[in-house]
């Protein structure tokens, strides 16, 4: 038997590492573009104040980048040790995107980063500006590749399973790259990261204005950040809508979980505000909510672009719905078990050199291989992710996104009217906005990752099959080591960042 506590510790360790890594990444992605905007204003206007502003935010960008760089590499360590079955089976798919990411990151960091930080007085203004833009574009493109890999796990496409090598092998690179899930994930992740960067600028600038320090610099920073943040929020709303639309066809269980929809219906409403019934289980007759406010037809419109269309709920997806042509998980489990048995028979036939039996087993396996992952489940209900975690994370994210839209609008109006310095209530809200942005950003990933449980690879491999057959003890040890290392790095980041913020732009 596989040690289930090991599976859960490996999950916890991966979540811990990914969430710490994600503290640094969105700020890098968003702030890099703001640095480019500030420097563009300097080059276009020739005003030294924009240069000072650009240099100040660039320094904070540099601190965040330096502390965060390579924290994601630990995820790759974990693949090899804790997730060896998964790592072996996806190696052919992930190799290309991650290699491209490595090459892009290396050349970007070795060249344009150096010019950005060392080159202020040593290269032309235009070349320095070009380098800053390349850092912004390159950092975001670098994120593309890891998101393509993540997108493939959520919607495996462009590949074929090779039973001889026991690997998913890439058949079509472009199909993997341009899969709808990968594209939705990339655009939504980067657009929300732009919001995080803009809110970071608003937080620091609000603090300056509350303290009455660096007032002109803070006001100018806020104008640019508010415009960027406002546009990014509109873009993020569009990409978020697209993500949900893609979820409806590729991961309908995730959509049902983050909307708390148990029984599918035509013209399903979207929950604007709700409190789940904690006693509710799939298949029972209890109400899903203790309290809810729904927008009629909203979910149907989001999922299918048709207000009266049918949106399947958790019960439809688990127990099937013949009328809507939805197969039950129990039926998929039978096919999955047959696929596993045929794969074992293929291996046994090869071992004794019986080519005819091997071919027969392989043909039968191929007929059911898309259900492979279901064969490892013990009950249909295992396909239901933690509904409460997914639902509340999604609604916290959406609620905060609406709040951010309001913050950007109010800051922009007040900054343009030049009344911002007097609005202490708004500045206090602005001061905490970056911390709220981190909560929203992390919540987004909780929706994406918790919402796709129990799958490591959607439909093909549940997490308990993806792990290495080792004891939980070693994973527990490294879990706490990571907790210590990452916490130290975070403390270092906060201390250095606060010190530089206190020094302010005059220190550069």
């Amino acid at each position, binding site marked *: 038997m596989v040690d289930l506590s090991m599976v859960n510790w490996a999950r916890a360790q991966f979540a811990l590492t990914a969430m710490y890594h994600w503290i640094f990444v969105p700020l890098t992605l968003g702030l890099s573009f703001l640095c480019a905007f500030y420097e563009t204003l300097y080059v276009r206007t020739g005003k030294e104040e924009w240069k000072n502003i650009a240099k100040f935010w660039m320094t904070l960008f540099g601190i965040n980048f330096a502390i965060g760089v390579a924290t994601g590499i630990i995820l790759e360590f974990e693949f090899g*040790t804790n997730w060896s079955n998964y790592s072996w089976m996806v190696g052919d798919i992930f190799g290309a995107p991650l290699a491209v990411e490595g090459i892009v990151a290396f050349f970007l960091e070795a060249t344009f980063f150096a010019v950005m930080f*060392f080159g202020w007085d040593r290269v032309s203004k235009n070349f320095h500006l070009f380098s800053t833009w390349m850092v912004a574009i390159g950092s975001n493109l670098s994120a593309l590749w890891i998101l393509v890999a993540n997108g493939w796990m959520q919607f495996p496409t462009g590949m074929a399973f090779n039973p001889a090598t026991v690997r998913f092998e890439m058949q079509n690179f472009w199909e993997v790259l341009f899969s709808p899930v990968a594209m939705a994930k990339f655009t939504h992740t980067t657009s929300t990261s732009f919001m995080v960067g803009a809110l970071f600028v608003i937080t620091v600038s609000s603090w300056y204005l509350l303290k009455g320090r660096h007032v002109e610099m803070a006001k100018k920073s806020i104008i640019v950040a508010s415009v960027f943040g406002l546009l990014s929020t509109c873009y993020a709303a569009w990409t978020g809508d697209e993500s949900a639309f893609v979820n409806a066809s590729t991961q309908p269980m995730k959509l049902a979980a983050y909307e708390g929809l148990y029984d599918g219906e035509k013209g399903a409403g979207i929950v604007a505000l709700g409190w789940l019934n904690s006693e509710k289980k799939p298949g029972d007759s209890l109400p899903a909510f203790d309290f809810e406010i729904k927008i009629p037809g909203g979910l149907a419109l989001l999922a299918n672009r048709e207000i009266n269309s049918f949106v399947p709920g958790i019960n439809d997806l688990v127990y099937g719905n013949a009328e809507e042509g939805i197969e039950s998980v129990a039926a998929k489990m039978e096919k999955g078990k047959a696929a596993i048995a045929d794969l074992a028979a293929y*291996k046994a036939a090869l071992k004794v050199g019986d080519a005819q039996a091997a071919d027969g087993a392989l043909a039968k396996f191929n007929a059911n291989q898309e259900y492979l992952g279901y064969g490892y489940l*013990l009950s249909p209900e295992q396909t239901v992710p933690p509904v409460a975690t997914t639902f509340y994370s999604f609604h916290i994210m959406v609620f905060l996104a609406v709040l951010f839209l309001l913050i950007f609008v109010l800051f922009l109006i007040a900054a343009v009217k030049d009344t911002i310095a007097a609005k202490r209530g708004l500045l206090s809200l602005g001061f905490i906005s970056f911390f709220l942005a981190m909560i929203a950003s992390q919540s987004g990933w909780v929706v994406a990752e918790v919402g796709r449980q129990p799958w490591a690879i959607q439909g093909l491999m549940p997490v308990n099959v993806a792990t290495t057959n*080792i004891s939980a003890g070693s994973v527990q040890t490294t879990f706490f080591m990571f907790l210590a290392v990452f916490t130290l790095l975070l403390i270092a980041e906060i201390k250095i960042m606060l010190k530089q913020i206190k020094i302010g732009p005059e220190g550069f």
Partner: protein
Amino acid sequence: MGQTYFSDIYRFYRNGFQRMTLGKTLWKIILIKLFVMFAILKLFFFPDFLQSNFSTDQERADHVLEQITGPARQNN
């Protein structure tokens, strides 16, 4: 000309590193972090399971196949 070009690049990086103030602290953090990650964590705590326990790709493939078709996984 090529030599001048490369020596210009060399001087650019050398002077850049020499003039760093905050950057020196950040580089120290980066180097300590990389040391902890690769020389301690990776080396002692994160062996690649399949690389460490099997010598050929065929053996690794056989092991993974055993893992995904064997009774250990199906009983979970």
